[in-house]
């Protein structure tokens, strides 16, 4: 009996040690696979998972551990569902960091209810609400997407450059929509423009004639739709075009998607918009990598998701540990200068530099530069629509 016990103990110890050296690091990918952003989530998850595969293949992270993605559904709108999904990832799967969530409301809920109490790092690729800049995060929360306070200013500049000084504004009734609408209205009115009406719309509703009726009655040169393309945003646009209420629109990031031109074709010719994006060499490189992996790298926030995952893993390498309490302070270090600039596809090289004790400045697919409370400084792509196609006008 004694021998048996001894033998089992020894086996246990041996397997334990074995597991320690080679058990994979798990990273959560919490995105809205169902819900208002479900058409964007697949390309975002693919981006994050490509970064993880790249690091695993290099075999250079923390003595060659592999990185395993674990997906969970944030639903984008249901804070309770997102919270319990994240809880499961942390307590059940034991993830060392989280890429996500996508929508601002659930991101805030996950941060304060799960990530902060459990001390797990979260990097969101797409939560853009200005409110998250001041959220209590113990240094655990970062985002590779810029705050909408910045987007409001950029939108104002684009519209003012086109000589549009009076707009009607509708936003999706949640943290993202409200935050962006307020930021835009403030910036636009400061610049001397007029917002004739600022009306919320609910997502996923059956009919938007009432909202469009109100927007049309208030009038304006253009309708600004701060909504989601898979949700009420498209419903509003469809109804506005059909009733002849507005001919041209301005679309912030939640609306820019292939679905927009698929749905409306030349119906939105003359409209404008912007979404986070950059013409840096990293973006180009990333798109090539994405097409090779058979998904759309130009899909919004896909590049940001790749960068979010990459930052977590590079910070782990820099800190020499996959413990969030230790690597959270390294995130800003690897994201910003000084150091060797790192583009997508060069994660192996970056890990080598870090292993040799060098410095890196992660540029990545979206020209990452983290400022203030750990959010992207923000590069935007200005787009317009002509003959049913999306045309890139430039970068701001």
């Amino acid at each position: 009996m004694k021998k048996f016990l001894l033998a089992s103990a020894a086996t246990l110890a041996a397997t334990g040690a074995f597991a320690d050296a080679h058990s994979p690091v798990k990273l959560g990918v919490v995105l809205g696979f169902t819900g208002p952003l479900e058409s964007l989530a697949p390309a975002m998850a693919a981006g994050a998972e490509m970064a993880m595969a790249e690091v695993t293949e290099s075999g250079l992270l923390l003595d060659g551990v592999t990185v395993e993605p674990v997906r969970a559904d944030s639903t984008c709108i249901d804070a309770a569902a997102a919270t319990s999904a994240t809880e499961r990832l942390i307590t059940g799967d034991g993830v060392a960091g989280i890429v996500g969530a996508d929508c601002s409301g659930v991101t805030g809920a996950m941060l304060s209810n799960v990530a902060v109490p459990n001390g797990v790092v979260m990097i969101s690729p797409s939560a853009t609400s200005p409110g998250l800049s001041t959220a209590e995060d113990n240094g655990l929360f970062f985002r590779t997407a810029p705050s909408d306070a910045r987007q409001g200013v950029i939108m104002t500049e684009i519209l003012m450059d086109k000589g549009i000084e009076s707009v009607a504004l509708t936003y999706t009734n949640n943290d993202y929509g409200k935050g962006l609408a307020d930021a835009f209205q403030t910036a636009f009115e400061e610049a001397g423009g007029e917002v004739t009406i600022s009306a919320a719309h609910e997502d996923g509703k059956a009919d938007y004639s009432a909202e469009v009726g109100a927007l049309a009655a208030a009038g304006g040169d253009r309708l600004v739709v701060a909504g989601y393309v898979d949700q009420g945003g498209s419903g509003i646009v469809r109804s506005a075009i059909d009733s002849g209420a507005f001919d041209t629109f301005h679309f912030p990031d939640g609306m820019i998607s292939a679905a927009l031109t698929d749905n409306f074709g030349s119906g939105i010719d003359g409209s404008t918009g912007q979404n986070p994006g950059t013409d840096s060499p990293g973006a180009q490189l990333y798109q090539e990598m994405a097409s090779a992996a058979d998904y759309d790298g130009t899909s919004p926030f896909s590049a940001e998701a790749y960068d979010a995952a990459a930052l977590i893993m590079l910070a782990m390498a820099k800190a020499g540990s996959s413990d969030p309490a230790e690597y959270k302070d390294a995130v800003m270090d690897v994201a910003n200068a000084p150091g060797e600039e790192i583009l997508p596809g060069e994660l192996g090289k970056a890990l080598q530099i870090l292993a040799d004790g060098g410095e890196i400045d992660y540029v990545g697919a979206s020209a990452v530069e983290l400022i203030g409370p750990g959010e992207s400084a923000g590069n935007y792509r200005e787009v317009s629509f002509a003959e049913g196609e999306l045309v890139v006008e430039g970068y701001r």
Partner: protein
Amino acid sequence: MEPLNALVAFANFVLVPATAYGAQLALGALGVTLIYGILRFSNFAHGDTMAFGTMAVIMTTWGFQALGISFGPLPTALLALPVGIVACALLVLGTDKLVYKFYRTKKAVPVTFVIASLGVMFVMNGLVRFIIGPDDQLFSDGERFIITARDFKTLSGLDEGLAIKTTQAITVVVAIIVVAILFWFLNKTRTGKSMRAYSDNEDLALLSGINPERVVMYTWLMVAALATIAGTLYGLDKSFKPFTYFQLLLPIFAAAIVGGLGSPVGAIAGGFVIAFAEVTITYPLKKVLGYALPESLEPDGLVQLLSTDYKFAVSFVILIIVLLFRPTGLFKGKSV
């Protein structure tokens, strides 16, 4: 000209869209009310039954389009309707055999049926997403407009445009035809009469030799037809997205209850009450009054009774008021 402009603006943003929306809700509510009246439970799976029927129609439409079959200026989807109805009928009859029949033979209480229908709803929800995906699908073709806002302006010389979409007109016309057939069926045919008898008094109907399984089958067939037609008309007018169909359940139930659950006339009235309440009460009268009143009286503000945020509150306030004063709904349905 000024009063005409006011009238056109009001028609364009309130009358036309609310009528089309009301017709869609009415067809949906008819399905809910039939199940409630004859099978005696609130079918929560109705929104997703609509989604399934519409999905079948969309896929058939794609097939027709690939074969080059079209319906002239009308949407091809109308040709595909019978196929969709058959597919939807097979689904609901299958569901009835698998799920509801079990509870019916056990004479389960209505609340058991309601919860079972909730389960069916989730399964259908998943089934539709599994087959066609969660994304928006546009399947309307043919002429989009009978008259566009721009054409109307040039034709009439007015400042305001009036747009009438083909789909809006089709919705209203089809709804009228379907309702007429339904009422003829319920009132004049033997099967319709036996359905009404079964609805009024189940035991008495059984005693007089009515076969309950036949009544149940016919009910499901009619529900499948109504759901597919309502879903397709809605999808043609707006767009098809499984999530939205699931959300449609709420206004449809509100319409059925306001009209009186179990009463077909009530379902139609309820549909229009809910649709007009949503659109009218939150409509800012600024433009209309601007045209209708002399210049000195023109309003500066939006003249909006309630912000559009409250449009759902409006329909539910109506629902509560109706239930408070007429618990059986406007048209004497069964009490809830």
